């Protein structure tokens, strides 16, 4: 027997023995199928390694340099013209075929697109929401509106819509949405300067009333919640805002309540500059359905307890 084969057998046995001991120490010799597969893999690896190494060591010992050389010759050193192994040729050709498919169809046509997946997901979700929205009861709408309100409005207006207090002064930071309380100062300012913050088409022109006494009377009346005797000059305001201050959809906001039309218009097109900064354009984030839901919730009074 050749010395090399002897060395191969000894090495194989040593490596298998080492594997066995190592497995045993780590508690790997049990019924677990994963461990059994690992042992099988180790045995195959050991045998294959020793077989391949032995083969090439033998070849180095016995091989004679024969065969055709390529036409290049570098200072007497040549290179054999070996044929490409069959397996390589097959893989090479398959790679070319796959490459042709990938460049013509795989990448441009069938490629994965994250944006595409997003589009599909959003479209599917919107469709299912629209379907559900068609059958909502008014109470369900309020609950859904509350969910939107808590995420998008509550950071400034508070979860009950009463506005959040300033950490230093205790002043309200954002408007209390439970009742529309217009201060006299504010009404006077709007009458004098006009306003187009809520996003109603055209907005309110400045100086609808000219006389200081008239402006004062109307502002006092509106600040008082439109109770008591109505000043005659209010007729100018009433033509758009309604004689009871209830507003007119798409034309002018209500002066007495945050009704659905006011909230929807503001969220869709208005940029309200309040005490604490410009109110965000929620239309950039909310869908029309969400705006409708949150408008219904605000009109209902955010602090009102909802039925289950």
């Amino acid at each position, binding site marked *: 027997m050749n010395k090399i084969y002897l060395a191969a057998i000894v090495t194989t046995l040593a490596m298998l023995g080492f594997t066995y001991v190592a497995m045993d120490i780590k508690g790997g010799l049990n019924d677990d199928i994963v461990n059994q597969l690992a042992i099988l893999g180790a045995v195959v690896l050991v045998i294959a390694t020793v077989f391949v190494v032995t083969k090439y060591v033998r070849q180095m010992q016995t091989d004679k340099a024969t065969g055709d050389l390529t036409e290049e010759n570098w200072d007497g050193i040549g290179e054999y013209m070996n044929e490409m192994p069959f397996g390589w040729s097959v893989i090479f050709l398959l790679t070319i075929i796959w490459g042709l498919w990938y460049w013509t169809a795989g990448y441009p046509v069938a490629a994965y697109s*994250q*944006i595409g*997946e*997003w589009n599909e*997901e*959003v479209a599917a*979700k919107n469709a299912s929401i629209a379907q559900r929205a068609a059958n909502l009861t008014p109470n369900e709408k309020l609950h859904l509106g509350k969910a939107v309100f808590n*995420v*998008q409005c509550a*950071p*400034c207006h508070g979860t009950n819509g009463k506005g*959040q207090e*300033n*950490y*230093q*002064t205790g*002043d309200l*930071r*954002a408007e209390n949405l439970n009742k529309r309380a217009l201060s006299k100062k504010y009404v006077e300012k709007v009458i004098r300067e006009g306003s187009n913050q809520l996003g109603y088409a055209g907005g309110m022109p400045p100086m609808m009333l000219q006389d200081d006494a008239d402006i004062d009377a109307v502002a006092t009346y509106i600040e008082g919640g439109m109770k008591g005797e109505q000043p005659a000059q209010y007729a100018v305001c009433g033509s758009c805002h309604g004689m009871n201050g209830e507003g007119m959809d798409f034309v002018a906001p209500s002066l007495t309540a945050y009704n659905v039309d006011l909230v929807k218009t503001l969220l869709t097109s208005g940029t309200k500059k*309040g*005490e*604490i*900064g*410009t*109110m*965000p*354009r*929620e239309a*950039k*984030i909310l869908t029309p359905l969400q705006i409708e839901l949150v408008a219904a919730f605000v009109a209902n009074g955010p602090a009102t307890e909802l039925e289950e």
Partner: protein
Amino acid sequence: MFHWLEKRPFFFAVGVFVVIAFAGLVEILPNFAQQSQPTVGTKPYSTLELTGRHVYIKNSCNACHSQLIRPFKSETDRYGSYSKSGEYAYDRPFLWGSKRTGPDLMRVGNYRTTDWHENHMMDPIGTVPGSVMPSYPWMFTNLADVDTAYAEQLTIKSVFKVPYSMGDEKILIPMEDGTSETVEIATTLAGANAAALEEAKLIVADMKNQDVKDMVAAGKIPEIVALIAYLNSLK
């Protein structure tokens, strides 16, 4: 097959050049596509906003807050539309961040106000119950570094051709609604400080902290004002 090339070093070098240049073209050409240009509606930062951006970087806001909205419905529902590459055209360096301990801030200007930030930077837990964000009271007293921001504006204008208008030169920036706007920077350092102060006055009009208001009235700009200007510009 390649013997002909191997015997002619010049043509071999040309061949190598062509092969490598092709790889270069594949990487370089897409950068000139429309998709890689600044997104319509993206403006470079004004002097005060850029000052605030440095406050943001200095305080490592980007360690906890990302500025990158991924195209997942859960993210676009919460933060607004997903980020496009062209929106970062004037961010040097970009502040994508890699870990969100706090929420994403890519479009925070769309849904928070000056006053909210003021309260939140001073008292995060009082503003958002359960928040883990620390308080940043020193921003209310430290002065913002407008000079550095202005120097950066001059640099990126001349080196990277950022479309700042300066003096008589007006560079129009297209907006989403079809109009165009300009972003002006001053021609002198004193002018830049004055312009930043004008911007700061608009911000403090919505703030409640009397000390900050007094500082701005006295011509000084605390870091918080610059930071809020920056955060409000993120849209």
